[in-house]
């Protein structure tokens, strides 16, 4: 039997014996108040039962207790392609981008996610318990993203939000190949506006009574169109449009589009954000900022290590991400991207918030994850020192009250 499987069985057995587990940390960052010194987090049946100083929180008799120097909420990667992009980087494990047409919002991440992809266990061992993952940047509209926990035998078990956002990309990264549209930025926006207008008409026809509806089929509704249905969900505000745009003019185009059609926009990448902080702030749209250590080439040539701190100062809601990598490293390690932001202008707790509670709020999952509070999911990351120091390790990870990693990373 493979050692990994044995370990898994051991965890399962342990959790069956003790549905209750407590984690005691020298410092517990709950992200719902000041850090607690000598704090305890008690979990039962997958949820957090109580959190507080060891002097106040009673650890039930017989409860398994795990010790750590530092405890944080399980980390949340606000945008990645892990689970769709495989670590081998060979055609058979690359599911993150379909290039057959520029606009395909009907594609769903849940139909592409490989729960056995080794990178999932890899990022989990560094504390990531929740990922917003999906089709990578590269098409004008590339598909629907999903939010997963980094556990589960199937995509359905992993998913906590099976369809989260529709991903779009503006600028040079999503131009068509070989004289195919979109060939310019102006064409990109024209195609998107046209798509939203068509979807509006589609929604209007669906709402009309069958008697007045020429296009209606025998069930009284127009024929289902998966593509327009997905765009319609954005128009109805059920899903945000996630717009990857690094250059300032593309960010501004996304804002203009969002205001024209009254969309919920989430800006992604946004390397040029420091040029237009006021415009972004005024839009009310949040930003999932590029990885702090992203390479400064192409549309991201202007990026700075200090952009997160500028968003922070401007009061723009933001989260950090690992994004998509086409080569090496096949994925970035979320805690190190936050660490580098903490070394370049953010405070420790601001950087930690960008990969926990603020990421949860941005993704709309803050009722379940992102902070250590009673009734939230038992998702924790444990460390033997400052999580942002290269020389300290992640020593344990819990998801839904179960220990899913005890590797020392």
């Amino acid at each position: 039997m493979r050692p990994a499987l044995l370990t898994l069985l051991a965890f399962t057995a342990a959790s069956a014996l003790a549905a209750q587990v407590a984690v005691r940390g020298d410092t517990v960052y709950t992200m719902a108040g000041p850090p607690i010194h000598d704090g305890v987090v008690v979990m039962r049946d997958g949820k957090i039962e109580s959190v507080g100083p060891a002097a106040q929180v009673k650890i039930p008799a017989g409860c398994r207790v795990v010790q750590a120097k530092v405890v944080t909420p399980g980390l949340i990667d606000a945008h990645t392609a892990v689970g769709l992009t495989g670590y081998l980087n060979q055609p058979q494990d690359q599911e993150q981008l379909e290039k057959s047409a520029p606009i395909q919002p009907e594609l769903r991440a849940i139909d592409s996610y490989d729960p056995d992809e080794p990178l999932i266990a890899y990022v989990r061992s560094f504390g990531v318990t929740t990922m917003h993952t999906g089709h990578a940047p590269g098409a004008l509209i590339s598909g629907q993203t999903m939010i997963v926990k980094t556990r589960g035998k199937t995509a359905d078990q992993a998913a906590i939000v099976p369809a989260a956002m529709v991903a779009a990309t503006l600028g040079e990264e999503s131009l068509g190949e070989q004289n195919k549209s979109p060939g310019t930025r102006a064409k990109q926006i024209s195609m998107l506006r046209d798509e939203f207008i068509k979807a509006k008409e589609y929604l209007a026809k669906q709402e009309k009574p069958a008697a007045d509806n020429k296009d209606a089929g025998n069930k009284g509704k127009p024929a289902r169109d998966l593509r327009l249905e997905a765009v319609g969900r954005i128009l109805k505000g059920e899903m945000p449009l996630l717009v990857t745009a690094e250059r300032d003019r593309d960010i501004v185009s996304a804002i203009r589009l969002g205001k024209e059609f009254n969309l919920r926009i989430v800006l992604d990448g946004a390397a040029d954000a420091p040029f237009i902080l006021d415009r972004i702030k005024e839009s009310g749209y949040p930003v999932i900022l590029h990885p702090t250590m992203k390479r400064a080439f192409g549309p991201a040539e202007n990026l700075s290590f200090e952009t997160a701190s500028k968003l922070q100062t401007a009061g723009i809601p933001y989260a950090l991400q690992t994004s998509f990598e086409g080569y090496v490293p096949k994925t970035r390690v979320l805690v190190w991207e936050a660490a580098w932001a903490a070394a370049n202008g953010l405070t420790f707790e601001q950087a930690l918030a960008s990969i926990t509670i603020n990421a949860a709020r941005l993704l709309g999952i803050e009722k379940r994850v992102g902070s250590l509070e009673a009734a939230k999911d038992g998702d924790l990351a444990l460390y033997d020192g400052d999580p942002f120091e290269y020389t300290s390790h992640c020593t344990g990870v819990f998801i839904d009250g179960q220990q899913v990693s005890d590797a020392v990373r």
Partner: protein
Amino acid sequence: MKRLALVWLCGALAFAQPKPVALTGAHIIPIAGAEIDRGTLVIQNGKIIAVGPANAVAIPRDTTRIDASGKVIMPGLVDSHSHIAAGGGADSSAPLQPDVRILDSINVRDSRIKKARAGGLTTVNIMPGSGHLLSGQTLYVKLRAAETIDDMLIKLPDGRIAGGMKMANGTNSRRQPPFPGTRAKSAALVREMYVKAQDYQKKVADAAGDPSKMPPRDLVMEGLVEVLEGKRVVHHHTHRHDDIMTVLRLAREFHINVVLHHASDAWMVADEIAAAKVPVSLILIDSPGGKEEAKDLRLETAAILEKAGVKFGFHTDDPIIDSRLLIREAGLAVRAGLSRPTALRALTLSNAEILGLEDRIGSLEPGKDADFIVLSGDPLSNYSHVLETWVEGAKLFDRSKPEDRLYAVGGPGASRDQEDISGEIAEEAF
């Protein structure tokens, strides 16, 4: 008259004795020898003249003193594998091009040179890519202030320009003919090349200096003879354990001085590498994979090589890792079990040894070049910044100056460069 004045002026500069400079109060990590808690470093004329504890270093009377209390000083970092400055080597005409020199292609105004200084780098091995079995001659540069590439060269005692030879095996160098399609063909082409070069070398030796008996000049063969004579080290891109063994096998057959680069699987054959006494220029990537050959790479490799007794240095392979993040590899390696002294040595002296420049650079010792960095804190801490980078006694990066800081943190204008025409660097550097 004008000409005479010029000559006189040059002479005056060359023989001037600038005042020594002493940096005092810093925590000094000399690499050669133990760390010094409150130390003094004295430099003059581009060289180190003294280094040691404050009470053991006599500071000459006319010295300019700089208070570096609370800061950390260590040698300038050495990167044994980089692609900064938009250089390119071989073109697509043939898989083996030992005649091509990256020297002839470097843009000294490339922003990545400034970023490298901001990251504390002072000496860099600039290499052509890995899309060829042999992609050309590499160049070791000092990151001096430069108008032209000539200002950055390192001259060897015999007058040659310091540099190595770049080779590769595995998948990057496999393409349509005349490039090889398999690993065995790759090795056969390389062996065939060395056999021809041995033949040329013999003809030159047989001529015994008689010009009438010399074979016609052949740039390809001249480059290879330097390799056969051990004057030019082969920097060999290789990932998989079997490819590493092929490099060692061929190096043994032709008596080649070789350095294994990247060496993703080195942890699997660490004892074999140690037995061959071959050093490794290692890169630590944040996650495994990205290409099939790198699926088993791990952060623990550095610690495993240390335990096996293999000498290794870290590299950036910039743009694979930004030069400003070279220092971070030492921290990641310590996280994965490497000792602190070996980690810091792998950023400096071990790389100097890999480039054969250990007599001049890589540690803070009297007589060595005054290449050093001033850090705000411990080099293994994520929170530390490089504050100053000095190359041969000249402070060429100062984080407190806005124009230098731009290259340390990025922002508008920090990355606007000429296109790299080699076309393969970004795709196949690793």
